[in-house]
């Protein structure tokens, strides 16, 4: 090389002068740790290199030094860019908080045509007066919705079977549209429904008002029908028929499906995924069973523990990766939420994995009777006799009273993972979230003791599995990168 140029060593920092930036680590294998920085970037490191790093003995020629400097685990004394970039990434991760509440759930009826054993809230009743939301309550709910400062507002209709009170859905949609002529928000509607009661008229209405449908598919016909009994034992057939009609009329991408993992699902994950493939879904959300309502009463919840569920999840994920490698793009949505946090500067703002908790500030629930809850889980808890997270009532309280209530503020105060004991020093804190309602329900304490927390064990289990896959399988990591950028 021409002598006018200096060699690389001329630009390499002097040894041992670097500063450590905030990071955390956790043993990963016998010899290795996984290390995460202030914004959740990660790297695998041998224990020897970790010691060298901490002792300021990592040599600038060491490739690990270069990785760690580029990923903002350390900086040389004059480096300003790492501080600016870490600050920027922190702001990016938290930017959704400033928007405040986006999702508003209207429980338009508790009545349901299904009698699912694990259901938390539904009623088998003809009594509309007792279990349906009234127009007056809906109006008060809309007052709240449009008080939210969020430029995007989503209204989701929940049940029971929400279509049993379709007249009220129409009333709310049209009233919201009317208000939005002047409010000018980005307004979206979703109806949560089993699709058993959809008609051409309902679907055409959804088409004309840009309403999406969020449905349920638990797996193959026998499993789905076992999970979701209804008169005639035809829940699956109704779903398939409704799905077809909804795709025809409302549009292919306007219908999504969620699955519930009942004890009967365990061991059948491949069949369940195949069922989603068969119906042309681009992904599946492998969800654990929540401990609320009848799920606890009927002991379904106790019938499988975290380890059993993790096995189910891992088997499912393995199969899904196999599909992707075959050239069939298919996403596991829960993983993709975590991967977005692990692999990007973005934060998908998923209610169960938010920091602070998404209760009230990501989503708020208006129950059929006007009661306001911090989350869907909070109202289920109420149905079990625990009203800890009832924020008030639409007919009695103002917006200010609700959103500055002690219940909500302490829920948020106590759910910053960066200050919760054992979360604050956890290597995976940046990827995780707080679920105060869950911890309250299970352990009588919204913080919960993390070594006993199933939420913690489950999330840790998933994260470690995802890390292990990325450490050992380059092709899978490429697939994960695509999932991470879907949210």
């Amino acid at each position, binding site marked *: *090389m*021409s002598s*006018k*140029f*200096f*060699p*690389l060593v*001329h*630009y*390499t*920092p002097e040894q041992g002068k670097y500063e450590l930036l905030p990071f955390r680590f956790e043993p990963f294998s016998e010899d290795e740790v996984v290390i995460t920085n202030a914004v959740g*970037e990660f790297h695998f490191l041998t224990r020897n290199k970790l010691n060298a790093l901490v002792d300021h003995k990592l040599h*600038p020629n060491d490739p690990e030094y*270069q*990785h760690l*400097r*580029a*990923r903002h685990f350390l900086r*040389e004394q*004059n*480096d*300003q*860019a790492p501080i*600016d*970039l870490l600050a*920027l*990434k922190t702001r990016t991760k938290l930017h959704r908080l400033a928007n405040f509440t986006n999702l508003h759930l209207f429980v338009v009826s508790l009545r349901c045509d299904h009698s699912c054993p694990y259901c938390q809230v539904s009623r088998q009743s003809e009594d509309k007066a007792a279990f349906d939301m009234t127009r007056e309550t809906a109006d008060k709910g809309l007052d709240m919705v449009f008080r939210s400062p969020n430029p995007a507002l989503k209204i989701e209709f929940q049940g029971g079977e929400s279509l049993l009170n379709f007249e009220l859905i129409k009333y709310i949609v049209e009233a919201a549209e009317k208000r939005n002529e002047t409010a000018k928000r980005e307004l979206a509607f979703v109806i949560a429904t089993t699709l058993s009661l959809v008609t051409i008229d309902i679907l055409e209405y959804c088409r004309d008002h840009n309403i999406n449908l969020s449905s349920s598919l638990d797996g193959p016909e026998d499993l789905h029908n076992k999970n979701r009994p209804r008169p005639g034992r035809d829940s699956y057939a109704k779903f398939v028929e409704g799905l077809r009609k909804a795709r025809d009329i409302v549009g292919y991408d306007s219908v999504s499906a969620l699955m519930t993992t009942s004890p009967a699902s365990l061991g059948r994950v491949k069949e369940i995924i195949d069922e989603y493939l068969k119906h042309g879904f681009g992904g599946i959300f492998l969800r654990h069973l929540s401990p609320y309502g009848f799920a606890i009463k009927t002991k379904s919840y106790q019938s499988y523990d975290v380890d059993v569920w993790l096995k189910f999840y891992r088997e499912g994920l393995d199969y899904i990766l196999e599909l992707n490698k075959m050239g069939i793009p298919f996403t596991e949505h829960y993983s993709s939420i975590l991967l977005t946090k692990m*692999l*990007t*500067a973005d934060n998908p703002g998923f209610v169960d994995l938010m920091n602070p908790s998404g209760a009230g500030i990501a989503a708020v629930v208006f129950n059929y009777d006007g009661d306001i809850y911090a989350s869907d889980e909070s109202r289920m808890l109420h149905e079990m006799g625990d009203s800890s997270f009832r924020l008030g009532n639409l007919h009695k309280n103002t917006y200010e009273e609700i959103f500055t209530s002690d219940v909500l503020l302490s829920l948020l105060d106590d759910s910053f993972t960066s200050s919760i004991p054992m979360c604050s020093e956890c290597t995976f804190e940046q990827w995780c979230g707080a679920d105060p309602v869950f911890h309250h329900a299970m352990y009588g304490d919204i913080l919960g003791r993390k070594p006993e927390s199933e939420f913690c064990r489950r999330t840790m289990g998933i994260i470690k599995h995802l890390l292990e896959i990325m450490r050992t399988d380059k092709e899978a990591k*490429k697939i994960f*990168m*695509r999932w*991470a*950028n879907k949210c």
Partner: protein
Amino acid sequence: MLTMSGKVIDSTLSQSEMFSLSERRNIPHVLREQKAFIVRNSEPLPEGFTHYFIIGDVDVNIPAGVGFTHLKKAFDYLGDDDIVRVLKDGSVRTLFRASSRHNSVFLTEQCNNYCLMCSQPPKKHDDSWIIKEVRQMIPMLPRHVGSLGITGGEPTLFGDEFLDILRLCKSWLPYASMHVLSNGRSFSDPKFAEKYAAIKHPDIMVGIPIYSDDPARHDYVVQAKGAFDETIQGILNLKRLGQKVEIRVVIHKQTIDRLPELAEFIARNLLFVDQVALMGLEMTGFTRANLDALWIDPHDYRDTLSEAVAILTSYKIRVSVYNHQLCVLNSDVYPYCVKSISDWKNEYADECAGCSKMTECGGFFSSCIQFGYSKHIQPYGVKAIL
């Protein structure tokens, strides 16, 4: 390759001058006064043009007192609205070609980087006269110019004068999409970045190189300590002000190893940039002096390039691959390959004869044809005739 500069054969000019050319002989006299006429044949000269450029061997009668310059046949490509400058010492340079989409305005030879592979090696001497000349030229350009590059050296080194050039372009060339090639370091000064943004040019992008996620390696490639830190801050300031930024990576032996890591760095830290260009080496300037340290056959790094492109596209970053021939790359990269080499220095190799993908392929820099290119060039879809 087109001849963009050379010596005149003969000229009546006694001082340096710049001309806008015309091939049309019958334009109104008021316009002839603003133009120099291109003489290609022996027809009598149309009267009233400010100057006459005679190209090649033309037997033409030049009336006494008429100013003319005689150029070699190599300048035969010159046409309507092109801009040519003749210096006192008899050197001539084409500054603008109206028929090209690749015009760049060159502002200075000075630079605060000293890149190993610089195609335009910087010089230290005072060349501020160039900016004055550019000021004179911009109003002479056709109003409808659709794109214009600003290059150097490091064009921002002249600070306010650089910004003045951009203001002129905004005023005189309302339809021009502007692209500035800068190392971005000047924009680390928030005040300078703010002044740049305050111009509010409707269509301008700054192309800024990052060569590694490792600051030491970037600083080495550009031969300037602390350059990485300043460049990153410059990009952040520009994006904070809503300005368009392209990241440009030249791929060579010193940058290829950490290219996937660089792609991840961009995805995690600079996701908001407008596009990323991954570029092949031009065999000119310092590259030829440092060839051993820089040259790697693109065929040998095609998998690494695929990996980097896959990372960037996963993160939905707009990616372009410049200066690469299709036959040395993996097909997953084809959709991102762009024919980017400026027309006047774009060629194809002998091996390309009969290739069925030639119209899609970006081909080579002329300098590569002359001084070296991949050993794996082979035409597509050519079958031996039995």
